[in-house]
């Protein structure tokens, strides 16, 4: 009687012990970090959208003063429509090709806008136009917000991916969240290329 009782008590104890061990691991970490990356990603998209929304006004204002810069202006308009027309697949964060494509199309728009702002330097009249100055500061601010949003996204993905790849998060995810996948992130080099510092 005593002999059979003790192993059972021990078993229960072990199960409790194991449960405590699991509780000590943050079993909600994976979905929580997952939500964080999604929110950070929405903010990235939001800021890119904001930049795209500024473009038509900016192009119109610049065109009013610098018609001969047709080539640069067309490049901006085309890059914008390419960036905004791209269909984002729902799994973009886990899809390296789509993610890269997204990154490239946004980088192309960033580059085209930077070239436009360089060209503008030749037109003092434009540079003193109130509307242009306002748009320029909004564009500058938006580029800055994009880089903050991207950095926040990179950090949340780093946290999420680390959780998924390291023990014990890896075990927890293996048992409880088998569908969780490592997410794509921006490469810093791309970011540096995308937002060249323009001195105003």
């Amino acid at each position, binding site marked *: 009687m005593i002999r059979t009782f003790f192993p059972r008590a021990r078993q229960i104890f072990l199960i409790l012990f194991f449960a405590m061990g699991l509780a*000590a691991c943050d079993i909600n970490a994976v979905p929580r970090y997952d939500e964080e990356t999604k929110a950070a990603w929405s903010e990235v998209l939001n800021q890119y959208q904001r930049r795209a929304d500024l473009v038509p006004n900016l192009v119109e204002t610049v065109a009013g003063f610098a018609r001969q810069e047709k080539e640069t202006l067309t490049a901006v308009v085309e890059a914008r429509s390419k960036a905004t027309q791209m269909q984002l697949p729902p799994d973009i964060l886990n899809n390296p090709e789509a993610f890269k494509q997204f990154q490239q199309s946004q980088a192309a728009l960033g580059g085209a806008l930077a070239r436009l702002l360089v060209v503008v330097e030749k037109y003092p009249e434009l540079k003193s136009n109130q*509307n242009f100055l306002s748009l320029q500061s909004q564009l500058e601010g938006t580029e800055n917000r994009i*880089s*903050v*949003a991207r950095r926040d996204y990179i950090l949340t993905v780093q946290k999420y991916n680390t959780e998924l790849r390291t023990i014990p998060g890896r075990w927890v995810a293996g048992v409880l969240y088998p569908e969780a996948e490592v997410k794509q992130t921006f490469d810093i080099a791309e970011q540096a290329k995308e937002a060249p510092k323009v001195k105003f």
Partner: protein
Amino acid sequence: MAARYMRDWGSAARAICSLALFLCAIHSVAGQPGFAAEPKFPQLSGRVVDEAALLSAPAKERITGWLLEFERASKRQVVVVTVKDLQGYPIEDFGYRLGRAWGIGEKGRNTGAILLVAPKEREVRIEVGYGLEGELTDAVSRAIIEQNILPAFKQGNYEQGIINGTAAILKVLGWKGDAPGVIITQESQEDLSPLSLLILIILFVIFRFGRSGFFGGRHGRGVWGSRSRGGFSGGGGSFGGGGATGRW
């Protein structure tokens, strides 16, 4: 025999469990992996942190008085900072990280703004918290810098520039106080349409919840009102890179 077998199994399982617990403990102690380094920020010693020593004592007192009065009336936090240098960071980068590190602005509403002056780099920035981006827009921030701050800075009169700039920021944010010589041109150009502002707010709320989780997470640093007595600290607001930069 059976008991013996169970005991062995028990000790092995216990060893495994201990190992798992140990790993968990390490995991929670080690916390998050090392992320990109932060600049070293000055101590938030008050509403005016004059690390670069650009302000006289009366000017500092005067500005602090304005900021305190404004915060009491509106629950919005504005802080003036001068730094010795930016430690190699772009001022935009330094600014929003400083704002987040100090948590300027009301928690959840992010109603904070910072006037950051870096005389060594000859750069000045108005850093605007998420919640004030609709009023203190990029264009308005830039106008404040161009019209109120840079003219004085170009003459080497930092004190006047900082006083005018602070007053202009407060005026835009609805301050009722009086400061002569401040120029405010309200831009008709709105930075955000109401719809995108709404989307921004919704996203932000989601982001906040996602970050702290429903259980645990970081808690606010005490009650808002208690802060006006004695020491001063940020309310836990956050920044997303809004504002404008000026160079002279």
